[in-house]
């Protein structure tokens, strides 16, 4: 029986901003790479879903990833579910890696790949940190 604790990843969806696309794509890829360690939820389900969705962050130690300083993922998770264990911010990650924010919101290719990889790297590290401290 699978009893290992999984980490909940809550991504900003940021439809309006390129940082949101970076966020979504990095979180999605990390989830596919670490299916045994991670789960996710669509952020608006905290409102549109039921009790099951709102208990997400109480069931899973959660990492939020936000695309801008408004920090929708972190704020919504804490307000509507439970306080996240770690919060990440795309502009901070890109700055740390010396990368510019991509200019477009869709049709990502090789030009945007370094930004996505930087976020995956930071997020994977955050997952290991949270798992090590459970």
């Amino acid at each position: 029986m699978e009893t290992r604790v999984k980490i909940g990843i809550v991504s900003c969806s940021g439809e309006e901003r390129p940082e949101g696309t970076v966020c979504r794509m990095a979180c999605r890829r990390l989830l596919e790479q670490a299916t045994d360690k991670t789960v996710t939820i669509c952020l608006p389900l905290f409102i549109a879903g039921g009790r099951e969705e709102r208990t997400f962050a109480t069931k899973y130690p959660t990492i939020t990833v936000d695309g801008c300083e408004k920090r929708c993922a972190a704020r919504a998770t804490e307000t509507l579910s439970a306080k996240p264990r770690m919060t990440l911010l795309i502009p901070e990650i890109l700055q740390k890696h010396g990368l510019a924010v991509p200019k477009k919101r869709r049709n990502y290719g090789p030009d945007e790949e370094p930004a996505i990889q930087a976020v995956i790297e930071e997020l994977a590290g955050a997952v290991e940190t949270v798992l090590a401290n459970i």
Partner: protein
Amino acid sequence: MDTSRKVVVLPCSGIGKAYGALSREIAYELAERVRPDKTAMTCLPLLVISDSDALKLVRENPVITIDGCPLECARKSLEAVGAKPAHACQSFKFYVAHKELKPEGVAQLNEAGRKLAGLAADELAATVDRLIAGEDA
């Protein structure tokens, strides 16, 4: 006509399903290619945290919601802040009407999905025009 009036295109935020990605792609097609001067987008999670600018935008302009699954996060999140969509649709229904174009892929849509998004945006253009003119969707 009030030229500052925009139709807000609000797709679901689905990050786990192809139809969520399709919803978002339809919104981008509509806002970037088909009706760039008549539409605006906002991030759906901004409504979840009651961001004042986002609330003002959706309360003062007609909104088209495009949802990716029956849970209808976009429509419900809009209604939760006291606004109603002028037009609510589900991306799956565009696939039902164009079954030769099966959307696949979650992070990014396949070519069929992108074509379907373009067709859907073209179909929604008339709705945008009616809403800008102050007519019903």
